[in-house]
């Protein structure tokens, strides 16, 4: 296999994942990638449905629909995750699908990124390694409470999934198959339990796969976690993780340590990225509704209903399609069934996850039922986003 620059086209594909409200980010990433790598096809997996919001034929990337990927129990998968969890959990499914299309290697780039330089010197490493990963940090940080910054990386994963590349070898595919299986049900943020969405699982890659390539190019994955150690010059891939175009002055919602005011030369990249998002229509796309946000009767799905279903594991099968409300024995009906007067099962399950409620209403179906019912009406529905 030859991944050298001349022959790279046709053997490699790249892709990202986005819900349609983030389509502007995907457009910016796809355009920037094409500028440096015009010969590598770029795919966008929509973790959502088009629903007439845009015309895929007029986009600069190739659209992949979630339904095209062989995801088992697909209805449960797209129900039991939040939009963010779903887009992260789909990563190994997209990579496997790209390899299944006949590409020799597949590159994943996370949506809120910008290609700012030629990545060929990195991609050429695919000739020698079946998997390429980029660490968050290439050396111990020296500023801004180094221990805290390192521990934060240990909790969220040594390797950043802003860039990952896999060659279609048996071993790499085996790793992707295992990663798919884990992410089908364990793509959540619970750092105490050892989970940080899709990312912490990547810590196993050098253990499970021989000869994983650790990309130590300082131009890759420049982001809030390694600024200011990285120079703003020679950037190949800039990651705007946690950047909100409505609050550009904050740079990232994940770290109060950095603001546009103290970013130094990197602030220029953030301003440029903002202008690209504007040109790509983020003001329009961000209001496009998420297609898996409601039951089929139009009732919004609260996040807690997603996690309850996920944690039920195989028992959740009995409900059939969880979006469906009209069938007997539906998940919707089960959640709304009262377990005591005025207390639907959903709220009893919420009570079970909340030590604060358990303290105030120790007996929610008996002695404290009335007060608990009042709490649901006055606070609970709003807290769980059910009042729209």
């Amino acid at each position, binding site marked *: 296999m030859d991944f050298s620059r001349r022959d790279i086209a046709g053997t490699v594909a790249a892709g990202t994942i986005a819900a349609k409200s983030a389509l502007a980010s995907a457009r910016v990433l796809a355009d920037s990638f094409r500028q440096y790598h015009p010969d590598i096809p770029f795919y966008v997996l929509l973790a959502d449905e088009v629903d007439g919001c845009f015309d895929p034929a007029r986009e600069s990337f190739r659209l992949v629909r979630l339904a095209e990927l062989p995801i088992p129990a697909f209805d449960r998968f797209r129900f039991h995750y939040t939009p963010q969890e779903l887009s992260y959990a789909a990563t190994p499914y997209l990579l496997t699908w790209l390899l299944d299309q006949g590409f020799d290697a597949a590159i994943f780039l996370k949506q809120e990124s910008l290609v700012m330089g030629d990545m060929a010197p990195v991609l050429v490493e695919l000739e020698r390694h079946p998997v390429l990963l980029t660490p968050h940090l290439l050396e*111990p940080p020296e500023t801004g409470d180094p221990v805290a910054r*390192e521990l934060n990386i240990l*909790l969220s994963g040594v390797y950043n999934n802003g860039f990952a590349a896999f060659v279609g070898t048996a071993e790499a595919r085996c790793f992707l198959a295992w990663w798919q299986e884990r992410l089908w049900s364990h793509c959540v943020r619970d750092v105490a339990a*050892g*989970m940080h969405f899709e990312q912490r699982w990547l810590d196993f890659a050098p253990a*499970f796969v*021989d000869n994983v390539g650790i990309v130590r190019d300082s131009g890759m994955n420049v982001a809030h976690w390694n600024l200011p150690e990285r120079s703003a010059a020679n950037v190949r891939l800039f990651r705007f993780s946690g950047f909100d175009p409505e609050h550009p002055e904050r740079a990232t919602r994940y770290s109060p340590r950095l603001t546009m005011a103290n970013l130094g030369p990197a602030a220029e990249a953030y301003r440029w990225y903002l202008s690209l998002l504007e040109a790509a229509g983020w003001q329009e796309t961000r209001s496009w509704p998420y297609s898996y946000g409601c039951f089929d009767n139009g009732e919004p799905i609260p996040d807690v209903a997603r996690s309850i279903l996920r944690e039920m594991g195989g028992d959740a099968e009995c409900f059939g399609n969880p979006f469906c409300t009209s069938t007997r024995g539906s998940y919707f009906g089960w959640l709304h069934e009262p377990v005591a007067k005025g207390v639907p099962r959903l709220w009893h399950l919420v009570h079970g996850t909340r030590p604060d409620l358990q303290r105030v209403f120790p007996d929610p179906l008996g002695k404290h039922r009335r007060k608990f019912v009042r709490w649901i009406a006055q606070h609970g529905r709003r807290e769980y986003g059910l009042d729209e």
Partner: protein
Amino acid sequence: MNSLAVATVVAKNYLSFARVLADSFLARHPGVPFYVLLADEVEGSFDPACEPFRLLTLADLAIPQPERFRFRYSRRQVAVASKPYLLEHLLDRGFASALYLDPDMLVMGDLSPMIEQALRHPAIVTPHLIAPASGHGGVGRELNILQCGTFNGGVLGFSDTPAARRFLGWWRERLYGECRYEITQGLYYDQRWLDLLPAFVDGAKVVRDPGCNIAYWNLMEREVRIDGDAVLVNGRPARFFHFSGFDPLRPDRVTKYRPELATADLGPAARIYEHYAALINGAGYTQIVAWPYRYGTFDNGVPIPEIARQFYDSLADDAAGFGDPFQTEPPGSFFRWLNEPVPFDGTRLWRFIHESRPDLEAIHGAAFLEWAVRHGAAEFGIPDALLP
């Protein structure tokens, strides 16, 4: 191969383990110097000249403020936090590479391939798992590894290269302050920090030989076969076992960390555990295990409770004013300070205990002092000399 040295660390109650490891290693590799760091003092318990290994003591290592280091950490923490000092010491002595092995290991085959890798690469580590955890509890076992660290801290090779030296210097600094069990913060003694090794050290090698570091956490994926004198693992020669958590007085149990695992259920590997128990007992275990830890008491013989070490640790640099914390006689000693009366809680030590226990928030004065004497003393292992 003479330019490599091997070492382990024990307190003297673990000396029988070090003897068995040294004997088993030297039987295969008689030309390689084998060192044992005693994280303790000899105190006439044994004659170093009669041992199969070369003895090092904590005083040989460049540990700053050694009495504070020995006081603030428990016996186990002192041993593991000494590893980077030990490895640096061996490199300083002129060895091209230094290989650390945990004391509770048994060499059963030729280690030459791993020794060659240690000499060839700036650093080597072995993962807990080299393939996904199989079976029903696979996800749970993997998450447990993610909480404790991908690489096992029981096998570490470092060569005298600038990158390896830099890593050892950083790791040593981290362990001086942050060698704790606090998995929700990303800390698991010395081990979680090692996850950053492939990120910080170019060319760090992950050794994926199934014959290396066979232990309870990977036995399910390692098929052990005994064929005459030969022990095979997944069809390849067994090189060394790691009997983590094994109690020679309870040979029916594989490890104290998984009480449900019975040695009898291990299949052919059960014989190796039996063999190991016999070797440890033959090396004087029952007598040696009772040898007292030199840093377990104040200089007046009063045992140091764990909570007093934590209290001292929490004072950070403020603790410098006490001088040597083991000394009890000087007017400004830590011991006297702990025992000084304070209003309501009895003494300073007991106030610290009170503040560490939210469940005792509502108990004050006489009621707290009664709890302290009747329950607290036993719960926290507080000797009479430190009662309120």
